[in-house]
C-alpha cells in the first residue's frame, strides 16, 4: 500500500474525521464546492456548520450522515446520535435553539420495522429535549447486498443574531479551555460493545445534546470559540481549534475528565481516551477573566456537572497542542487511520 495507491481510492481514514479527511476535503471537495461567505462561515472554513448572513440575522446550517455499528448501543442509538450530533454542531456555531431538523434514512431491506421504530422514537425524544422537531425527511431502502444496516442523515437549521456565531478560529492566547464532561466514552463504549471485546462493565456512550450547556456558558461569560469533539475525540477538536485559531494550546493531562471505567477499558484496548470519539461534549474557549464563572455555570447545568478547565491558549507552539503530564511535556496529535484495539 504505497502512498500512490492511497491517492487513487478513498480509504476508511478519509472518513475518520482527522488529517486524512481534512486533506481530502481541501484537495478534492473545496476545489469544487463552497465559497467564502462575507460576515459568515462557508464550506471553506470546514467548521461545524455554515453561517449565512440574512439581514440582521444569520441562518446556521449543518449536516451529518451517521452510521454506527451496532445501531442500538449502550447509552443510545442511531436516532439519538443523529439528533444530538446535529444539534451539537449547530450549538458549536452558536445556534443553541435549533429551528428544524431533517431525517434522511437509508435502510437495508430486511431491517426489522421495530428497529426503525426504536430509532425514530429516540430521534423524537432527543429532538423534544432540544425543543425542535423533524419537519421533512426522505426514506430509501437498499438491497442487503448494497448496504449493511442504516445510514441516517440529519441536517439542522438554526438562527443567530448576525455576527454572533461561535467558530473554531476565535481563540486568543490567554483564553482558557473548558470541556463540558468526561471524554472518550462514546468510542470506548462502542468498541467494547462489538463482538470480541466484551467487557463485563457497563460502559455507556455519552451521546446527548449539549446546546443548553453552550447557552449556559454564553450567559455566564465570554465564549470565544466552540467545537464538539466527535470523531478523533478531544485530540482532533483541540488540534482543529489550535490550527484554525493560530494559537498553541497547552492541556493539563490530569485535568482532562475521564471516567474510571472508560480509562481502564481504554488501557486494556491500548487506546488514549483523549483520541477516542465523544458524542455529548463541547470544547469551549473562554475569556480568562470569565473562566471560573463559566465553569460554575456549566457545572450548575444538568449534564455539565463534570465540566473542567483543561488548559490554555498560548502564543507559542502555534497550531499545536502540548500535553503537560506533570513529569514532562509532549505534543498531542490526532489519531491516524482507524482506531483499533492493540496489544503492543
Amino acid at each position, binding site marked *: *500500500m504505497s502512498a500512490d495507491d492511497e491517492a487513487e481510492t478513498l480509504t476508511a481514514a478519509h472518513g475518520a474525521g482527522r488529517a486524512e479527511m481534512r486533506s481530502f476535503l481541501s484537495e478534492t471537495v473545496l476545489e469544487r464546492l463552497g465559497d467564502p461567505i462575507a460576515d459568515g462561515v462557508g464550506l471553506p472554513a470546514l467548521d461545524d456548520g455554515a453561517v449565512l448572513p440574512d439581514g440582521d440575522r444569520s441562518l446556521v446550517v449543518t449536516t451529518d450522515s451517521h452510521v454506527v455499528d451496532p445501531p442500538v448501543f449502550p447509552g443510545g442509538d442511531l436516532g439519538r446520535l443523529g439528533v444530538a450530533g446535529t444539534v451539537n454542531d449547530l450549538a458549536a456555531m452558536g445556534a443553541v435553539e435549533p429551528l428544524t431538523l431533517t431525517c434522511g434514512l437509508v435502510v437495508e431491506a430486511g431491517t426489522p420495522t421495530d428497529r426503525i421504530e426504536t430509532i425514530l422514537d429516540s430521534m423524537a425524544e432527543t429532538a423534544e429535549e432540544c425543543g425542535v422537531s423533524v419537519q421533512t425527511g426522505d426514506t430509501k431502502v437498499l438491497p442487503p447486498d448494497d448496504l449493511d444496516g442504516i445510514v441516517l442523515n440529519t441536517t439542522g437549521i438554526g438562527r443567530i443574531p448576525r455576527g454572533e456565531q461561535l467558530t473554531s478560529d476565535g481563540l486568543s492566547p490567554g483564553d482558557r479551555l473548558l470541556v463540558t464532561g468526561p471524554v472518550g466514552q462514546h468510542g470506548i463504549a462502542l468498541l467494547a460493545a462489538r463482538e*470480541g471485546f466484551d467487557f463485563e462493565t457497563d460502559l455507556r456512550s455519552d451521546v446527548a445534546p449539549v446546546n443548553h450547556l453552550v447557552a449556559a456558558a454564553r450567559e455566564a461569560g465570554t465564549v470565544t470559540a466552540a467545537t464538539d469533539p466527535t470523531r478523533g475525540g478531544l485530540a482532533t477538536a483541540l488540534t482543529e481549534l489550535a490550527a484554525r485559531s493560530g494559537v498553541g494550546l497547552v492541556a493539563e493531562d490530569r485535568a482532562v475528565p475521564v471516567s474510571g471505567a472508560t480509562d481502564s477499558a481504554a488501557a486494556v484496548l491500548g487506546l488514549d481516551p483523549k483520541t477516542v470519539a465523544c458524542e455529548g461534549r463541547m470544547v469551549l474557549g473562554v475569556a480568562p477573566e470569565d473562566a471560573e464563572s463559566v465553569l460554575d455555570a456549566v457545572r450548575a447545568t444538568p449534564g455539565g456537572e463534570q465540566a473542567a478547565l483543561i488548559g490554555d491558549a498560548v502564543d507559542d507552539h502555534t497550531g499545536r497542542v502540548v500535553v503537560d503530564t506533570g513529569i514532562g511535556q509532549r505534543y498531542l496529535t490526532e489519531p491516524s487511520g482507524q482506531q483499533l484495539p492493540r496489544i503492543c
Partner: protein
Amino acid sequence: MTAGGPADSGADELTFRDPERADALRARLESLVDRADDSIRIVHVCGTHEQTIAEFGLRSILPDGLTVAMGPGCPVCVTDSAEVDEAVTLAESGKLVATYGDMLDVPGGDRSLAAVRDAGGDVEVVYSAADAVSLAAETDQEVVFFGVGFETTAAPTASVLRNDPPANFSVLSAHKYVPPAMDVVAAHPNTRVDGFLAAGNAATITGTEVFEPIAGTHDLPVVVGGFEPLDVLYALVELVEAIADDEPAVVNAYPRCVSATGNQAAQTALWDVFERVEGEWRGIAAVPDATLAIRPEYAAYDARERFDIEVDRDSETTECICGDIMAGHAAPRECPLFGEECTPASPVGACMVSDEGPCRIRQTFGEVRQ
C-alpha cells in the same frame, strides 16, 4: 491514561507517576551522568518503554550527556515483509485471517491486511489468540491466526495450541525472541551501546537470567525495567550508575513482575510449541535463533504446513531505513522519507505503522523542548 495502564495492586494513581519523585530521580541521574567520564548511550529494546518515554515527555527532562535510543523492540516493526505477504496471501485465498489490531495497516511487499479487508477479504481483529480460536469454533471456514509479538505474546499463542483448538484453526507464526537481537545490536560495529534497558514484559516470562550471557559477552549492564514513568527513570539510574562504576551487572529494576527465572508455566508452554530458528527481522536481516517456529509436533496447526503459501521474498521497500533505526544506527529524522512521503496516514515502513514504531512515535508525540 498512560502506557502503563491503571495503577496496579492497590497503589494510587500517583505511586508510579509522582512528579516530585520524578524530579528527584532526574536530579540523581544528572549527578550520575556528571560522575561518568563520557556521554552515555542507553539502548532499550521495547516499544512500550519508548511509548512511556514519549508519552510522558521523559526525553525532555533527561540530563545532557545521556541518550536513550530505541533498538529493535517493536514486534510489529520487525515482522518481516514476507511474513505479512503470507498473511495477505492466505486472506486473499479465502481464509479468515485473525490478528491483532496492530498488524492491520503494516505494509507487506504489495499490500496490507487492511487493504485486503477493504477489497472484501475476511480479516478480523482479535484482542487475544483465544478470541481467534472462538472465531474458528463458530465457522467452517479456515481461520488462520497471524501471531506476532515477542515471547510475552508467543506464550499465549502456545497456550491455545496446547488446548485442542478446532481443526479449522491454524497459526501463521511471526513470533520472535528478543535476546539474540540484543546480541546482534550490541555486536554491530556502527552501534554504540553502553547499557541495555531490557523489556520488563518479556522478562516476566523468561526471567532476568537470560540477560546474563549478554552482559558477560558484551561487558555492559542490562537493567530490566517497568513501564511507569518512575520505573523507567529508576531503571536509568541503575544503568547510569552501573556504567559510571563500570559494573556490567544484570539488574532487576522491575521486581513486582519479574524474577530471576521467570514464569515457568509460560516457559513450558512456549518451548513445548515453539523452537528458535534463524529468521529475518525486518530491516535487520537474518538473526540466528530469534524467530519462533512451530515445532513439528504441532504441524497440524501450522499454517505453513497446512497451506501452500507462496510469496515473493524480495518485495521489501528499499528506501526505508527502519532497520538502521531499530539497530540504533540512525534516528527517524535522518530518513529522507520521514514526515514527507512517510506519515502515519500513509506509512512506507513498519516503523511508521505501529503505535510502538520509532518513526510513528516520533511523528505522533514529537518532543517538546523546554
